[in-house]
């Protein structure tokens, strides 16, 4: 039986599935139901100085009949009294000693940080998460992403927290930066025990065209929100990978951003995440989604022979390299299965208008063919094809030795007479 329990930077949890700091962790009653459903940990809705939230807080991107593939919010931190939150944290820990309760915090001054950290630890927090990520509202007051975007401030506040905390401290980063390793290194220098990312992406979810007003509306106005859900996962995976690859960032990472299924969670873990955090999918479907996350993960581990989560952490990291180190002589081409093809010719338009003009149709037929000498193996036709397995990309043995761009340019610089790598076509004609 695979073991799903994890020790994340000293925080123990029965499984790597945590609820992110957000509406699903707003109260003790919710967190306890979540633990009953199977969640291993919860990062409490961010605590800080009192705020008031607006009415109408969320916006959604629907795609066809799929709801909420992208989601944004203009909600701020907790609007409940701190005393209530601390009392409930204590209650949750009393009832669920084996589960991880991490308290998310966001305040301004050093004194405030000292005070709120102490109160969180007194309530029984297993760890703290410093919210340096929220890109709406709070950043206008110099907190949230305003901190994550200023490496010096990020490092400084992390240092304060490390000074006042005797439980592990996680720094939650904003993706609204040019290079995620900059705040990642800053937090590491500040002594953080772990990082979590991504917080939401600064966004405008859409415009109501009838009224000419940005969504989600508060009366007749709106503001930028934080974007999350399925649609942001590739961005989050990229940033998780960047930090996991960075030798100057040698602390554990909690992956966040568009996790909805066991497969999504495993992708983060494969790129170096020790735990994953989920919010939007729970807001959409409820805490119960964790049942399949656990079941699917266990089945995957049994099938692949993994016994612990740790064995999978970072498994895919060695497959990442700079573009300049990819083999330019590796050649694949598209193959159309004529028996499966339904003749929609989506691939023809895609190839002619969006790629390399190498898929054609004989007069009087519906099934296209590939000009294999011209096909540059881009995958586009395979993705637009609506029929499963109809278009496959197959490897071609072109007899050429491996040659990367870096190798090629280095050889040219040395003055060597090297053959131009890559496939020569009507457009490239090397």
């Amino acid at each position, binding site marked *: 039986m695979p073991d799903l329990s994890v020790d994340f930077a000293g925080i123990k949890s029965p499984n790597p599935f945590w609820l992110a700091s957000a509406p699903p962790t707003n109260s003790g009653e919710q967190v306890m*139901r979540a633990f*009953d*459903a*199977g969640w291993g940990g919860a990062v409490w809705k961010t605590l800080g100085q009192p705020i008031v939230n607006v009415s109408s807080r969320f916006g959604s991107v629907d795609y066809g009949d*799929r709801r909420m593939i992208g989601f944004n919010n203009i909600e701020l931190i907790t609007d409940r009294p701190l005393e209530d939150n601390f009392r409930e944290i204590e209650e949750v820990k009393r009832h669920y000693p084996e589960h991880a309760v991490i308290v998310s915090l966001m305040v301004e001054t050093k004194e405030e940080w000292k005070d709120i950290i102490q109160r969180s630890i007194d309530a029984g927090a297993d760890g703290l998460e410093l919210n340096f990520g929220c890109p709406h509202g709070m950043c206008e007051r110099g907190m949230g992403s305003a901190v994550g975007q200023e490496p010096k401030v990020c490092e400084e506040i992390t240092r304060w927290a490390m000074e006042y905390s005797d439980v592990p401290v996680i720094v939650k980063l904003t993706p609204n930066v040019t290079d995620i390793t900059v705040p990642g290194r800053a937090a590491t220098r500040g002594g953080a025990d772990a990082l979590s990312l991504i917080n939401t992406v600064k966004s405008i979810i859409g415009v109501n065209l009838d009224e000419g007003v940005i969504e989600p509306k508060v009366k007749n106005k709106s503001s930028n929100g934080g974007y999350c859900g399925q649609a942001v996962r590739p961005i989050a995976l990229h940033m998780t990978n960047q930090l996991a690859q960075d030798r100057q960032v040698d602390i554990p990472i909690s992956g966040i951003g568009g996790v909805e*299924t*066991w*497969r999504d969670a495993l992708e983060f873990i494969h790129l170096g995440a020790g735990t994953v955090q989920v919010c939007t999918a729970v807001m959409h*479907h*409820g*805490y*119960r*989604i964790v*049942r*399949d996350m656990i*079941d*699917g993960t266990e*089945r995957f581990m049994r099938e692949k022979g993994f016994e612990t989560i740790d064995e999978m952490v970072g498994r895919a990291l060695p497959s990442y390299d700079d573009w300049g180190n990819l083999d330019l002589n590796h050649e694949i081409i598209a193959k159309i299965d004529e028996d499966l093809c339904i003749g929609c010719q989506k691939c023809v338009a895609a190839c002619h208008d969006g790629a390399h003009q190498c898929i054609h149709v004989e007069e009087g037929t519906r099934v296209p063919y590939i000009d294999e000498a011209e096909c540059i193996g881009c995958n586009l036709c395979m993705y637009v094809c609506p029929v*499963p397995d109809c278009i496959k990309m197959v490897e071609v043995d072109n007899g050429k030795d491996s040659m990367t761009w870096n190798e090629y340019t280095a050889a040219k610089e040395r003055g060597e007479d090297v053959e131009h790598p890559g496939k020569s076509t009507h457009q490239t004609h090397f």
Partner: protein
Amino acid sequence: MSETTKLPKARLETRFSPKEPLMTKHDAVVEANRCLYCVDAPCIDSCPTSIDIPEFIRRIATGNREGAAKAILEANILGYSCGQVCPTEVLCESTCVFQEMEEEPIRIGELQHYATDNALEENIQFFEAGEPTGQKVALVGAGPASLSCAHRLRRFGHETTIFEAKERPGGLNTDGVAPYKLQADQSLREVEYVRQIGGIDIEYGTKVGEDVTLEELEDEYDAIFIGVGLGADNRLGVDGADLDGVWGAVEFIERLKVEDNFELPDGVDRVCVVGGGNTAIDVVRQMRGLDVDDVMMVYRRDEASMSGYDHEWEGAKKEGARGVWHAQPAEIIGDGQVEALRCRRTRTNDNGELEVVDGSEFDIPCDMIVLAIGQSKLGELFEDVEGLELDWGCVVVDEKTQQTGNAKYFAGGDCVSGGKEVVDAVEEGKVAARSIDAMLQGRDPAEAEDDARPVAVSGY
């Protein structure tokens, strides 16, 4: 010997192709993603075995087909056959919330078939037998009720022995379900899969009351489960009922499904099927499937009064069958061989009662008559059991526990209900197992935990 070797290869049923072929992965994932994953979903309530349907469908959607099978089989160990034989149109799919927006309901039955097929194919076992309790349960009849009961009893750790009069297991799933829904080899494959938990012994060719007595069973076993189903087809009490060419419906379907080289007699072009229930419709559809020219459903009331499902009858009509309504068989005409079915017209009188119209005889020329007017009840096999009550030949049980008036005897399936769905038999077998386990542990069966309903983890 494996279960599937118990069948001849040359079975007429193999000529039928499945009504709903196994979904492709693509089809299944697209359909699964259409499911709304409702909370406290109505489809669960309209499944007699309370399968957590939204959960298993979500698992298909996330690529966890094995986990989907587990979610199904946890509630219904015969989920593979139920996915194909259940009248989902009037069960789970009838309450799918899409019906409320006039949209097609989720194809739950087909998704269930898809999810479980692989588990059977790869023999993926999800359940283990419990720690041996040393207690033994005898089960009479190897149909869905007993198989469901036996499997769960094994999970509780009790020893089980099934006594089956025939030479093969599966009951109606093997012998009686129309082959366009489920074929005999599929049923036997499922039985084999269920028995992989180990310790479900089956004594074939053993009739209770003849080859083994109830006294012997009572002496040797700690509890007895009755799952004998129904008996032979009812006959028609009219002149000519013994002519060649008069068949019972269940007899016909069984021979079609499991007899070696069975064929319809030569020259059968016109067939009258007498009855208005689902078995009658099954026969009608099979006759059309066997290319019989003129297949008539002969029923004493009108079309709207048939007890068979509308969707099945609509299917039969599309396939070319026709109905003869308000026709009450009076005599079967023929000289050795059936030549016609003589009927009298009926009508509903002012009191709402059906009455025969005097002098209204008419003949329906035909080559074969199949009687689908019910089956005999087998309850009398147990009439001497002290305390056990019968009601018109059906075994009377406590609805909550499936326990009979004799504390040692439990019962489920058609021998209790008089004839319901496979899925009902599975549920009753499951409930009986829970009750038997409670009784064997010295607890009150009525207090046994209902572990069938998915745990409401969200507590809304």
